[in-house]
C-alpha cells in the first residue's frame, strides 16, 4: 500500500471522516453563500484527476499531487480529504471519495466532484458524516458536481449558534414563509426579526406595508438596516379616499404586481404585512396566483443558482379567515410558522416543506428582544412551586386518638392469614372443582298434590294463554 501520508490510519467506516474531522468553522468567514463557486472548483479538479474508479488502489496515488502538504490543509478555505470506505484498503467495493469541504459559519458545504455511482456514495457519506446530519439533499445529477449542506447535529451546537439556527432555518428553503399569528400572540415582531436577519445577510428587503405606518414599522431598526428596507406604503391611503393622487393607481393589486416585476439582481426578500389585509381586499385566487409568481421568480431565469432565492415572508392573522383560504395559503408555503404560547412565553410551531422530502415539524420557545434579535428559550416557565406552609409543622395525626389504630402481633398474623370470601385462590378453585366427600348436594323433594296442574310450558301458571 502506498504510504500516503494523508491516509487516515486503519480505515474504519465510522471514523472515516477527514483527518481533523471536527468541522472547522471559519469564524470570520463571511463569504457569500454562493454554492456555485465551490462546485466549479470541484469540477475543475475532477477533470484533472482520473475519473472515479471503484476499488482501484490507484486512488491512493492521487494525493501524490499534494504530497507536499499535510492532510487536511486548508487551501483557501477548503480542504480535500480522502476517505476510505469499507473494511480494508483493497477490498472490492471499497471506494474512496474525494471531498471538497468548504466550511462556513454554521454549515459545511460538501461537494463531491464527478461521482458516478451515486448510491454507494450516499451510503459512504452517511457513514462519514456522523457528526452531522444531512439536512438538504437535492436530487443528484448524474456526474458533475453537486452539493450537500451539512449542519452539525444538535449536540455539537452550543450557545449562540442556536440563536441563529431558527431564523436561518426559516430562511433556508426560500419561497413563501407563512407566519400565522393570533390576537394574543402577535407575529409582527418575528417578521421584523426575520427582516433584520435578511438585511444583515446583505439582501435587499421590500416591504408592502398595509397595517402599520412606515414610522412604526421602522421603529427599532438601526440605520444600516433601515437603509436596506424599501417600504411600499399602503397604509396611509390604500383605497384612494383622500384623492390626493399619492396612491398607486390600481390599488393593492397593482402594488403587489409591481413587486413581481422588479429587476434588481441578487437575493431579495419581500415581506407582506399583512397577507390578511390583502386577502380581505383582493379575491383569493388572484392573490394566490400573484404569490406564486412572486415566490417562484427564479424559475423563469435560466441559470439561477440556488443561492439567489426569493424569500417571501407573509404575515397572516388566522382568525380572520375560513379554512379555505388558510388551506390554500398553507399549501403554497414552503415554511409555515404558527405562533402560540403558554404562561407568557411565545412558541413557534414550524412546519418545513422541503422539496422532495417529507414535511418536518419543530417547536421552538422563543422571545424577541427589543432590537429584534431572537432568543431561544428552554420552555415555558414552570409554575411556581407551592411552598409548604411554614406555620404548621408536620405532626403525626395518629397520636391522641380515642380509638385504637394499631394492631398487636397476634392480630396482625390473624389478619394476614385470613382469606377473603370473594378472593379466588387456588384452594377455593380446587374446592369448587372437586366437591368434597362431606358435602351434600342439595335436592328438592316435591310431591304434587291433586290440585297441581304441572304444565311444562307454564310451570308458574301465570301466562294468559
Amino acid at each position, binding site marked *: 500500500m502506498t504510504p500516503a501520508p494523508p491516509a487516515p490510519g486503519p480505515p474504519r467506516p465510522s471514523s472515516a471522516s477527514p483527518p481533523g474531522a471536527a468541522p472547522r468553522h471559519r469564524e470570520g468567514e463571511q463569504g457569500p453563500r454562493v454554492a456555485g463557486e465551490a462546485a466549479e472548483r470541484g469540477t475543475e479538479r475532477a477533470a484533472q484527476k482520473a475519473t472515479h474508479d471503484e476499488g482501484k488502489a490507484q486512488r491512493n496515488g492521487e494525493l501524490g499531487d499534494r504530497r507536499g502538504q499535510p492532510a487536511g490543509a486548508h487551501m483557501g478555505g477548503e480542504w480535500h480529504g480522502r476517505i476510505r470506505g469499507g473494511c480494508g484498503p483493497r477490498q472490492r467495493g471499497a471506494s474512496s471519495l474525494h471531498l471538497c469541504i468548504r466550511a462556513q459559519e454554521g454549515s459545511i458545504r460538501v461537494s463531491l466532484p464527478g461521482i458516478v455511482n451515486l448510491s454507494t456514495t450516499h451510503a459512504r457519506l452517511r457513514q462519514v458524516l456522523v457528526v452531522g446530519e444531512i439536512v438538504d439533499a437535492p436530487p443528484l445529477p448524474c456526474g458533475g458536481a453537486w452539493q450537500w449542506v451539512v449542519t452539525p447535529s444538535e449536540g455539537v451546537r452550543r450557545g449562540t449558534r442556536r440563536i441563529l439556527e431558527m431564523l436561518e432555518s426559516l430562511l433556508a428553503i426560500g419561497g413563501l414563509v407563512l407566519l400565522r399569528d393570533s*390576537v394574543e400572540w*402577535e407575529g409582527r415582531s418575528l417578521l421584523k426579526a426575520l427582516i433584520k436577519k435578511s438585511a444583515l445577510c446583505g439582501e435587499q428587503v421590500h416591504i408592502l406595508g398595509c397595517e402599520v405606518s412606515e414610522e412604526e414599522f421602522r421603529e427599532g431598526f438601526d440605520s444600516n438596516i433601515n437603509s436596506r428596507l424599501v417600504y411600499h406604503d399602503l*397604509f396611509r391611503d390604500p383605497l384612494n379616499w383622500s384623492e390626493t393622487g399619492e396612491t398607486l393607481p390600481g390599488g393593492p393589486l397593482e402594488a403587489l404586481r409591481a413587486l413581481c416585476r422588479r429587476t434588481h439582481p441578487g437575493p431579495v426578500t419581500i415581506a407582506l404585512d399583512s397577507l390578511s389585509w390583502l386577502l*380581505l381586499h383582493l379575491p383569493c385566487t388572484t392573490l394566490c396566483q400573484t404569490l406564486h409568481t412572486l415566490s417562484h421568480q427564479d424559475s423563469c431565469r435560466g441559470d439561477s443558482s440556488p443561492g439567489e432565492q426569493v424569500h417571501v415572508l407573509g404575515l397572516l392573522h388566522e382568525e380572520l379567515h375560513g379554512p379555505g383560504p388558510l388551506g390554500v395559503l398553507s399549501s403554497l408555503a414552503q415554511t409555515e410558522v404558527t405562533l402560540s404560547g403558554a404562561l407568557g412565553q411565545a412558541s413557534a410551531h414550524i412546519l418545513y416543506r422541503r422539496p422532495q422530502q417529507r414535511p418536518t415539524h419543530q417547536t421552538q420557545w422563543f422571545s424577541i428582544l427589543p432590537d429584534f434579535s431572537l432568543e431561544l428559550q428552554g420552555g415555558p416557565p414552570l409554575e411556581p412551586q407551592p411552598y409548604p406552609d411554614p406555620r404548621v409543622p408536620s405532626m403525626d395525626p395518629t397520636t391522641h386518638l380515642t380509638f385504637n389504630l394499631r394492631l398487636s402481633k397476634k392480630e396482625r398474623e390473624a389478619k394476614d392469614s385470613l382469606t377473603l370470601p370473594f378472593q379466588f385462590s387456588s384452594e377455593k378453585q380446587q374446592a369448587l372443582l372437586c366437591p368434597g366427600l362431606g358435602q351434600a348436594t342439595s335436592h328438592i323433594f316435591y310431591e304434587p298434590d291433586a290440585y297441581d296442574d304441572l304444565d311444562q310450558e307454564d310451570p308458574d301458571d301465570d301466562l294468559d294463554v
Partner: protein
Amino acid sequence: MLSRNLKNVSIYHSVFIMFVFCSARGRASSPVWVADTARASSSVGHAAGARQAVLSGGPGPGRESSQGCSFPLLGMFPELNNLLNTTPDQAEQGKLTLLCDAKTDGSFLVHHFLSFYLKANCKVCFVALIQSFSHYNIVGQKLGVSLTTARECGQLVFLEGLKSAVDVFFRPQEEPHPLQFLREANSGNLQPLYEFVQEALKPMDSGEAAWRCPVLLVDDLSVLLSLGVGAVAVLDFIHYCRATVCREWKGNVVALVHDSGDAEDEENDILLNGLGHQSHLILRAEGLATGFCKDVHGQLRILWRRPSEPTAQRDRSLTYQYKIQDKNVSFFAKGMSPAVL
C-alpha cells in the same frame, strides 16, 4: 379681640365658598365638599385648584380616598384608571383601544372613556349610534361631565345616529351625509362618515392648540353590521381613522364592538378579530360564566398588545371582576368581592 378674629375667619370662609360656587357652575353639590374646600383652599389658592378640590369629595363606597392629586377624580372610574395605569393628564396618544363585551353590557366603558377624555381636555368626536344625546348627558352628569357644555364650547362633536338617520331620507341627495350608507342599496363604504370625522377633528389652524389631542369614540360598530355595512368596510373605516387620527394627529380612537359569543356571526367575528389585531389595548367585559350575580356583575379582561416598552415586565393580560354602582364601578380581583369575603 377674639370676636374680631372669629369674624375674620367667617368672612374668610364665606368668601371662599362663594368663589367656589361661581366657579363650580352648577355642579351637583353635597355638604361634604364644603368642608373639603376649607381644607384644600388653604393650600391651593386659585380658582381651578379650588374647583378641583371640591370635586374630590363625594360619596362612593368602593372609591379610594382622595389621593391628593390636583385633578378631579370624580368623573370617571378611578379604579379603572389605576388598572390601566393612566391619568387624564398623562393619557397616551396615538392608540387604538378596543372595547368589547360578551354576554353583558359594556357601555359603562364607553361612559368612562367619554368622561375621561373630556376631563383630559381633548377634543372628542363621538359617533353615537345606539342611544340618544340625553342618555349620555344624564349618565355623564352622574360622572361629573356636562355634555351640553362641552358641545357648546366646541370640545365635543356629537353625531346622534338615531336622529340624523331620519334626516338622511329627508334631505336632497346631493349633500353628503355621514350616514349616507343607509340610502344605498348595496353595502357601500363608510367614506362619508370618515370625512365627517376628519372634518370634526381637524386641528384648527388658529395658532395655539386649544385642545390636547383629538379623540374619536364610536358606540358601537356592531350596529353598522346590522345596518348592512360589510365587515371589511367597517375595518377600512377604522383603518382610515387610525391613519388620520392616530398617526397623523397623534390622537386616540376608542370603539365598542359586541361579541356575539355563541351565536355564529362570522362578520362580527371578522370585525372583532380584525380590530383586535390593530389595537393597542383591548378591554373585554364578560358576564360571569356561572350566570347572573347580584354582587358581581361581570369580569373585565385587559390585554395590552404592543407594549410601548418591551423590556418592562408588564403583565400583558389582567382579569378583574367588577360591580357597577350608581356613580362608580368598583373593581376587585377574582373572588375577592367584598360581598363574599
